[in-house]
Each structure stands twice: as structure tokens, then as C-alpha cells.
């Protein structure tokens, strides 16, 4: 090791993609290595001569680096350790950084000596459909034997088993033109649209813009392609209307010009800097988009084509030109297209011996022959039948079309079966690819509105064509978004040949020939699947798992279906292609969650008394988004039941205060307010007199109860209605639908006032005494002036506006009082202080629940969307004199069936027993079968007033069975209790406390 840089046997001098002066230390499988700034993990490993980087999924075969991009199916590694461990990361896209720590997957104990490589010898067992065939029988073996075995043997990497310590964020952005891919076409498109003034976002998954301009030895306008790319990026960077997003993969296309992208903000750093997320999920709304995502080179299917040292020809050029790494010492190039010539030029320039250019075509074009002659490379028209070598390539078995087979010593086989345009994003919204015979590739078919395709993604395989289509689509997109574009100037690029003859496979290979490297699907699997009748491409996919790995078969699908087409004697378009779906490359779940983790998963709504309740040491419960106090424990109380019972007794004997602000409050005003409410509620609200309150139910149109609450008429044309906490938004939306859509002729307005009012229930025999100390003396709240179910506006605490409602959920003499929300905190403190000598307590949702069950009032567990008013004993409130939503269907035979379970009370026959909500009722002595089911317990509570548990439930013919004993059967909690049916309410049936 000398100075700052590194000297490696496979590192080449020069180049602009890496910095020879910046050394980077990293480890792979615990061994220390060094690379250079600009390296990926894959290029650094290759520079260090590391050839085996993984074991394959099924057969545990040794695998090396196949590609130089995100399509990599082989070189998947685990990155980092501990909580930050990330499995299945492609070494080819992992930016090298100091301290990077990677390990190989699927090997035990080591990459070189993998015990499970015995699977390779058992290969006949692991053929297509092996999951279906081998492990069919006996079924019990699946769980105990097969599944653990398969998971152990065929797992990919291991996820971290600790919580992710990093943060992820989400961002929204808008633009005129989104350019996806920053290669020749993308840069050109962004330049044209950006110069015209359009708001442009240019995204590229790589950490450098340039795409194959950095990877191929080409020139534009007299300078190197890489230099041109650098200048283009510099110009774009200067344009204020252009945003460059490097390390950003656009992975999904959604309706209405919405695109999802993942930006790897900190993945190239040892750990994210403070205040920066690891990754950022972008939602991009773009008026126009240009898919310039390039292409993916196809492997050739020949024997042992998965051996380390067999690499895509384009990747070989990338490693040489961009990363300045020699992927081998002596190469054989095997191609069916003119890229073979570019490859031998670059190999020769890098002083790598080229043993032969094996051209799968019968004849090689003259210009390619000339290039080979210049490079001194022999051309063989024929095939590489097999690669050979135990752990990595050592020889190539070459079979000329005319002549004798021979062996070439080599450690590198560069292969190319042509290029697949990366059209995945064009198919996310149902686009169907179209086969192009001349280009031997699928091109985009129908595209979503506003989407263009340019460059290699559009089948433009030469650099000059890429630049031209980039300029053309950039101009079209800018014009479509209202910008003027004069004929853009397209720089001149070096000429190149792009001829291709279809060639997919070597049929007589001696060794396994792979199609899908990541899922270990070989040519023989496709042959078998076809023979067994799986001839449709979707069947082939599922039977063999071709294309079903995390790379979605980027390097496999087209070859696989081409082989199937050959076997069935059909054409490729007749065979068809499977659909690509988002995400284009795997996305971490953490990025989808963003900041919505833990307590931040949903917003939290705090009632006005929250701070005060917290000071009192209240326990809280989530009610929808609200955090409501559930009870207020005091020193010396041993459990929640003791606290709750004390609160109930205080309300029943003195006075209690409960924050009920979370109930929905809706203000209804207008000359037709009464008419609207009449159509929404089952009882008449027109008949309600000003200053009075009524309990009301609203139904869904299908006749089921939607919600209940109170309706107060506080003026001739002014009502205030309440909803349950859970249904506040739904009821409001329903009322808006009625006003805006069902009956637009009604002159009425509806507005939510839930958050404008802090509302407290003040309940108990001393509630009026307490209120009299709060309400300003000019207001009379005596029984005569303010009887039960009265409502009115008044002032409290010396002039604060308030609304008082005399109503009761607890069954006690009670009120609800609302003050403007900003007074909510001060008001509860004042109430508690004023009531101190009256024995006032604060009570929470638990005590509230106990008291409403004691009174037989229904709540959420009874209003569960499957109950009717008749089920709940509320039929008396169903007006027969008017139409209202749900009236007609509530009278359906099914809903009026007398055998429907109906609301009734329950107590344990043995009074000391506890009841359980959810228990099902069975006749005594009947077997616990669904056929004998007679209903279920909806709500239970311990009643301190009665000294035993009580429950509400729905029981067939319940009201006429009072006194009968039934079984409450709860197999979930293993409970079986005899319960007695009892009349409701449990306490104060005459309602004397209410009016007293």
C-alpha cells in the first residue's frame, strides 16, 4: 500500500469516474480491503480480485458480479450490522464509503466452502415446480419439516431484528417535466426543456449522472462522452428551474401524472448525519414525463453461464471505462450483436487479452471484422457452449458453426444477447409492450397521458439516436406545458453499428444454463415446464418462479419467454410478456412509513382538559384520534376498578365532571334546518320547541342505525346536534351530502363546531349546586326555568359565553356545558375548585361507560352497524308521519324479523362471577355450536351501585325472556358463565334521579 491511493492487480490507471488519490477502507466477510472514491462495492471487490461474492438462492452455486447496475441478480450482499443491517443489497449500486461493512449471503460456513452447495448435486429434485411436487405430501410435514428446511436452505439475506434507528421522510414536489434517467437521452431532454424555462426534475438512480456516457468510450461534439455529460450536468445545475435528484429511483407510476421516487439520501454514508433521513420518498406530480431509463443487457443462455467471470459485455465496458477495473486477464467475448466490437476495443485498450470474439451470427458484418482485425482479435462464428471452472471461469468451450470445437483458457467471458429497453415504468398503468422485430426488443406500447419515452428505453440503441430522441421529447414536453422551444441543437456523436440477429440459447450445453440467475431458473426448467403443459407465459412464471425474484427478472424475462417461444413454435409476440409492477427496484418499508411511526403513526387530538387531566395523573385511552382520560387514580387505590368505582359513586352521590368535547358538534342553521333534520333523524325535529333538546338516531339508507346523539334547538332556525366521538366525521360528511346532493333545494347550512367548543358533562345530585356557583347570577337554572332536556345560551364566570344543555347519559341530574374552546382548560380548573366542598370528582370514560350500562343506554358496541332501532328497543322513536333516510328499508322483512337478537340486560347467576363482552349466548344445556347461538354480550361493567357485574347484550327475543338463565360462552378466553336475563335499566327505572 503506497501513499493515499492503492495498487491493485486489477486496477487500471487514469479515467474520470474514480479518484485514484482517495483511498477508501471497507470490509467484506470480515476481510479488510481498500477501494477508491467513485467505486461501487462491486467495482472495489473486482479491483481486489474478489470474484465469488455470493451463493445462489436455490443451488448455492458460486456467483460473481454479472452487471454494473440495479438489474444485478447475483451480487446481493448484507450491508452494515446490528440494527442497520440491510439484506439483499446490490453490490453493483452500493456506493463505497469509508468503513463500509458488507457480508455475503446464502453461504455456510463460507463462500468458498458452502455445505448446502450439495443442493447443486440434488438439482434433479429442485426442478421447476418443485415446491408443488416434492412437498405435496404428507401435509403435516410441511409446517414441521419442509418449510423450515426450505427457509434455511433457500433464504435470501437476513433482515435486522432490531428497530431501525434511522429516520425516513416523505416529500411532495410538482414540476412541468419529470425526466427519468440521466444518460444521454435524459440529459439532452432536461437541457432542452430546462432551457425553455419548464420546471424540470431530472432523477437518476446512480450517484453520478451520465448513464452509459460514463461507461462507454464514445465522443460527442469532439470531446469524450463523459466530459459532455459533466458539462450538461453543470449547465442544468445552474438553471434555477431545474432540480437534479441523484441517487433517486423513480419506481412507480400512478394515476394523474403522479410518480413515486426513492432518494437514498444517506445510504452512501456510514450513518446518516444528524437531522438527515436515511432515505426520502418523493411523490412527484408531473404534467409531463420522459422515461429515459436506458436499457438492460441480456445474458446468453449457455452452460455454466452463472460462473463468476461470466459478465455482461456492457458491464465489462463499464468496469473498464468508468471504474478503471479490469474484470479479468484474458477474455472471450460472446455476442449476437455489434456491441461485441465495442467490447473488444475497450478490452484491448485496457491491455486485457482477448482470446476470441465468438459471434453467434452466421456472418459478421465487414466493419466489425475490420475492428477485430485492428485489435488483432480472432472472430469465431459459433457459440460458447459451456464455461468451465470449479469456482470461477477458467476455460470456455467454443463450438464454431463450421469447424472443430476447441477450448480457450480465459477468466472472463463477456456476453451480450442484445438490450432490453427499460420500459417497466410505461407498463405500470396497464401499458402493453410491443415486440419490435428489427430491434429484437419490446418497446413501450400505449402509455399514460403525458409520458414520453426516449433513448435506449425507446429502442434508440446508438448514441446519436439517443441524443436526438432526448431533444425531441424534451421539446415536446416543454411545448405541452406551455413553453416555446425553437428547434433544439443536437450535438454530433460518434457513429457506431447496432446490428443484431436474435440468439438466445445454446441448446446442447453440457452444464446447467441459467435464465433467471436470482431465482436459479435454468433453461432445463423452462423445457420441463413446457413439457408439463405450462405453456402460457404467466403459467411458466409461476411454475418455474422465472422473474419472480426481487429483480423482477430484468435480465431474465425476455430470454425466458424467447426460449418458451422456441419450444412452442410460436412467435415472441404470440407468447407475450409478463407485467412489470411497482416498485422498479426494491424499496425499504421504512421509506413508506416515513415519520408515521410509533406515536406519530396518526395525529393525536387532545381534549381541552388534557393538560389539567395529565396534572391529575389521569390514565388515558385512545378514542379514535382522541386521547381521553379513562380514569383518575388516587393514592392508595390498588387498581383501575377501585378508582372507577369511586368515580361512579361520587357521581351518583355528589357531582362529577367529564370532558365530553370529543363528541362531534354540528351547527345547523337556516330556514330549512328543521326540515333537513327531519329527513336525517327518525324522530320529528320540527316539533322540537326552541330551547329544548331531544335524543335522536339517524339511520343508514339500508335501515341500520348509523349514529345517535342529541339535537338541541337553540333558535327558530338554529340547531346544534351532537354525534358520537367515533362517527363525528362520518355524520358531518353525511349531512353535507344531504345538503349539497340529496336536497339542494333546502335553505340550510351545516358546519362542524367540534373543535370550537370545550364541553363538560356535570353530573350528580349536586350538579346544579355547582353550576349555580359558575353561571352568572342573571341566569335562572332552577328546575322550573331549566328542566330536564332544556337548552340555552347564557354566560359563566363573569361574562364568558356558554351553552347549557340539561341532559344525562349517567341517569343522574346532569348538564352539559360548552364554553369557547380557548377557555376549556381554565374552565375545568374553575369547576373543580368551585365544587371542592361539594365533593366534586373528575371522571373518565370508564366511569361514563359503567353508568350508561347501569342505565341501559346504547353506545359504540351496540351501534355497531349491524343493529336496527328495533333491535335496540328504540322503535318508539321511529316516526310514521314523515320520510327519513333509512325508513323504507328499515321495514324490510329481514330487519323486522321477531327472531332478531334484541337488546336486554344480564347479570351473573352467581353474583361474584365476572362477565365478558363478546361471550355468546346459548340455551342452558345446549351444545356450543353456531346453530345454537342466540346472540352475544356487547358491553359489560362492574356496577358499584349493585355490587356485581352487569352486561348489555343482544339476545333472540330478549325482552320477553327476563328472568331466564342462559349460558354466556366465551371460548376465546375460556369462560362459561350462567347469566340471568334482566330488564333495563339496572338502576332507577322511574328516572327519579334524572328529574330530581
Amino acid at each position, binding site marked *: 500500500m503506497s501513499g493515499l491511493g492503492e495498487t491493485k492487480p486489477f486496477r487500471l490507471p487514469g479515467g474520470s469516474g474514480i479518484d485514484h488519490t482517495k483511498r477508501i477502507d471497507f470490509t467484506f466477510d470480515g476481510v479488510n480491503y481498500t477501494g477508491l472514491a467513485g467505486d461501487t462495492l462491486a467495482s472495489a471487490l473486482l479491483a481486489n480480485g474478489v470474484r465469488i461474492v455470493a451463493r445462489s438462492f436455490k443451488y448455492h452455486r458460486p456467483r460473481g458480479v454479472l452487471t454494473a447496475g440495479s438489474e444485478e441478480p447475483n451480487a446481493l450482499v448484507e450491508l452494515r450490522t446490528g440494527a442497520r443491517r440491510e439484506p439483499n443489497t446490490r453490490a453493483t449500486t452500493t456506493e463505497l464509503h469509508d468503513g463500509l461493512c458488507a457480508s455475503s449471503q446464502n453461504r455456510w460456513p463460507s463462500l468458498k466452502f458452502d455445505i448446502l452447495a450439495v443442493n447443486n448435486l440434488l438439482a434433479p429434485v429442485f426442478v421447476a415446480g418443485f415446491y408443488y411436487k416434492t412437498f405435496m405430501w404428507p401435509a403435516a410435514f410441511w409446517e414441521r419439516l419442509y418449510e423450515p428446511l426450505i427457509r434455511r436452505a433457500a433464504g435470501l439475506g437476513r433482515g435486522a431484528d432490531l428497530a431501525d434507528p434511522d429516520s425516513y421522510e416523505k416529500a411532495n414536489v410538482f414540476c412541468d417535466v419529470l425526466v427519468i434517467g440521466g444518460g444521454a437521452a435524459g440529459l439532452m431532454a432536461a437541457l432542452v426543456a430546462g432551457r425553455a424555462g419548464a420546471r424540470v426534475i431530472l432523477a437518476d438512480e446512480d450517484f453520478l449522472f451520465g448513464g452509459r456516457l460514463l461507461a462507454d468510450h464514445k465522443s460527442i461534439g469532439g470531446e469524450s462522452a463523459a466530459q459532455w455529460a459533466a458539462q450538461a450536468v453543470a449547465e442544468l445545475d445552474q438553471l434555477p428551474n431545474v432540480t437534479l435528484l441523484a441517487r433517486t429511483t423513480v419506481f412507480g407510476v400512478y394515476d*394523474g401524472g*403522479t410518480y413515486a421516487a426513492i432518494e437514498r439520501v444517506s445510504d452512501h454514508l456510514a450513518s446518516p448525519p444528524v437531522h438527515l433521513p436515511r432515505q426520502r420518498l418523493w411523490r412527484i406530480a408531473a404534467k409531463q414525463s420522459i422515461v429515459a431509463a436506458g436499457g438492460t443487457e441480456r445474458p446468453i443462455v449457455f452452460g455454466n453461464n452463472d460462473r463468476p467471470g461470466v459478465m455482461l459485455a456492457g458491464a465489462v465496458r463499464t468496469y473498464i471505462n468508468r471504474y478503471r477495473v479490469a474484470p479479468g486477464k484474458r477474455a472471450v467475448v460472446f455476442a449476437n450483436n455489434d456491441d461485441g466490437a465495442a467490447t473488444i476495443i475497450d478490452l484491448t485498450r485496457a491491455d486485457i487479452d482477448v482470446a476470441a470474439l465468438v459471434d453467434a451470427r452466421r456472418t459478421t458484418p465487414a466493419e466489425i471484422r475490420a475492428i477485430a482485425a485492428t485489435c488483432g482479435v480472432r472472430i469465431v462464428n459459433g457459440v460458447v457452449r459451456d464455461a468451465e471452472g470449479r469456482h470461477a471461469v477458467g476455460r470456455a468451450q467454443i463450438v464454431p458453426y463450421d469447424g472443430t470445437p476447441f477450448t480457450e483458457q480465459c477468466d472472463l467471458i463477456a456476453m451480450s444477447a442484445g438490450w432490453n429497453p427499460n420500459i417497466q415504468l410505461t407498463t405500470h398503468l396497464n401499458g402493453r409492450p410491443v415486440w419490435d422485430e428489427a430491434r429484437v426488443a419490446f418497446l413501450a406500447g400505449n402509455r399514460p397521458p403525458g409520458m414520453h419515452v426516449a433513448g435506449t428505453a425507446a429502442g434508440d440503441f446508438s448514441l446519436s439516436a439517443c441524443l436526438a430522441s432526448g431533444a425531441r421529447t424534451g421539446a415536446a414536453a416543454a411545448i405541452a406545458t406551455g413553453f416555446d422551444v425553437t428547434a433544439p441543437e443536437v450535438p454530433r456523436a460518434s457513429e457506431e453499428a447496432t446490428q443484431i440477429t436474435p440468439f438466445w440459447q445454446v441448446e446442447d450445453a453440457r452444464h446447467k444454463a441459467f435464465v433467471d440467475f436470482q431465482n436459479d431458473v435454468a433453461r432445463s426448467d423452462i423445457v420441463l415446464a413446457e413439457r408439463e403443459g405450462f405453456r402460457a407465459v404467466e403459467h411458466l412464471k409461476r411454475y418455474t418462479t422465472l422473474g419472480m425474484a426481487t429483480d423482477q427478472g430484468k435480465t431474465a424475462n425476455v430470454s425466458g419467454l424467447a426460449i418458451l417461444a422456441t419450444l412452442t413454435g410460436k412467435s415472441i409476440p404470440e407468447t407475450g410478456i409478463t407485467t412489470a409492477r411497482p416498485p422498479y427496484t426494491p424499496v425499504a418499508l421504512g421509506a413508506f412509513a416515513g415519520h408515521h411511526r410509533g406515536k406519530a403513526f396518526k395525529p393525536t387530538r387532545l381534549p381541552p382538559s388534557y393538560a389539567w387531566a395529565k396534572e391529575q395523573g389521569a390514565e388515558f385511552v385512545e378514542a379514535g384520534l382522541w386521547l381521553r382520560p379513562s380514569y383518575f387514580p388516587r393514592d392508595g387505590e390498588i387498581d383501575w376498578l377501585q378508582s372507577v368505582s369511586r368515580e361512579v359513586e361520587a357521581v351518583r352521590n355528589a357531582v362529577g365532571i367529564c370532558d365530553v368535547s370529543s363528541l362531534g358538534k354540528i351547527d345547523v342553521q337556516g330556514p330549512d334546518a328543521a326540515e333537513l333534520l327531519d329527513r336525517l333523524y327518525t324522530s320529528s325535529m320540527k316539533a322540537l320547541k326552541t330551547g329544548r333538546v331531544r335524543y335522536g338516531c339517524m339511520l343508514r339508507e339500508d335501515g341500520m342505525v348509523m349514529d345517535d346523539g342529541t339535537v338541541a334547538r337553540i333558535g327558530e332556525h338554529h340547531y346544534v346536534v351532537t354525534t358520537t366521538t367515533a362517527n363525528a366525521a362520518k355524520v358531518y360528511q353525511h349531512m353535507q*351530502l344531504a345538503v349539497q346532493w340529496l336536497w339542494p333545494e333546502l335553505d340550510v347550512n351545516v358546519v362542524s363546531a367540534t373543535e370550537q367548543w370545550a364541553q363538560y358533562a356535570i353530573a350528580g345530585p349536586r350538579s346544579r349546586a355547582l353550576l349555580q356557583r359558575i353561571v352568572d347570577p342573571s341566569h335562572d337554572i332552577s328546575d322550573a326555568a331549566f328542566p330536564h332536556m332544556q337548552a340555552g345560551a347564557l354566560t359563566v364566570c363573569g361574562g364568558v359565553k356558554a351553552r347549557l344543555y340539561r341532559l344525562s347519559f349517567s341517569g343522574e341530574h346532569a348538564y352539559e356545558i360548552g364554553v369557547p374552546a380557548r377557555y376549556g382548560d381554565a374552565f375545568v380548573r374553575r369547576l373543580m375548585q368551585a365544587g371542592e366542598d361539594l365533593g366534586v370528582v373528575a371522571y373518565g370514560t370508564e366511569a361514563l361507560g359503567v353508568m350508561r350500562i347501569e342505565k341501559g343506554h346504547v353506545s359504540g358496541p351496540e351501534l355497531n352497524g349491524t343493529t336496527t332501532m328495533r333491535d335496540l328497543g328504540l322503535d318508539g322513536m321511529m316516526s310514521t308521519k314523515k320520510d327519513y333516510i333509512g325508513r*323504507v328499508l328499515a321495514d324490510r322483512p329481514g330487519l323486522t324479523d321477531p327472531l332478531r337478537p334484541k337488546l336486554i340486560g344480564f347479570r351473573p347467576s352467581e353474583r361474584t362471577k365476572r362477565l365478558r363482552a363478546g361471550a355468546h349466548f346459548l340455551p342452558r344445556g345446549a351444545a356450543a355450536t353456531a346453530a345454537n347461538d342466540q346472540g352475544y354480550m356487547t358491553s359489560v361493567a362492574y356496577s358499584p351501585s349493585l355490587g356485581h357485574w352487569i352486561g348489555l347484550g343482544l339476545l333472540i327475543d330478549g325482552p320477553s325472556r327476563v328472568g331466564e338463565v342462559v349460558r354466556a360462552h366465551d371460548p376465546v378466553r375460556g369462560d362459561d358463565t350462567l347469566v340471568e336475563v334482566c330488564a333495563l335499566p339496572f338502576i332507577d327505572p322511574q328516572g327519579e334521579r334524572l328529574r330530581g
Partner: protein
Amino acid sequence: MRIACPCCGERSLDEFVFLGDASVMRPTADCADREEAFHAYAYLRRNVAGPCDELWFHAAGCHAWLVATRDTRTHEISAVRLAHEVARERDTTRGASGS
């Protein structure tokens, strides 16, 4: 998906709540065979492959109910109108043809 609210402009899908087919009309209480009519209103829906009028509520926006014309095959939205305006037109037509 993005919906162009006539009040608020083009907004993301997650600001809206979907209700359903806007072509069904609530029967009047005095209509003939009202059980059948309400059954159809509550339950029967066409399954259109093509443009379809739908009710959407701009819940995280202006609280307007909207009638959006969406092609169920492509999710392309060709028109968005305020529901109360559509309803007034509808009722005018219904009133005219009824009387």
C-alpha cells in the same frame, strides 16, 4: 390520482373521500313500489367499464361534494363539478319532466 376541485384546484387523491355512483337517485317517499325503488337505490350498481359519474367529498379541503367523471378503465378524470350544481340541474330536469 389527482382531482381538480372546482374550489381548490388540482389536489391529491388522499384529500378526498369516495362515496360511489352519482347516477343513482334517491327515490321520493311517495314513489310507486317504494321498497323495490329503495332496494335498487341502496344496493344495485352498474359496473361500468368506461366513463362514470362518481361522488367524492373534499374532506381535507373545502368540504364540497363533487361529481367527478372518471373512466374506470384508465382512471382518467374528464370532468369535475360541484355536486350541488349538478343536483340543481338534475332536479330542474326531474321537476320539468315530472310536471
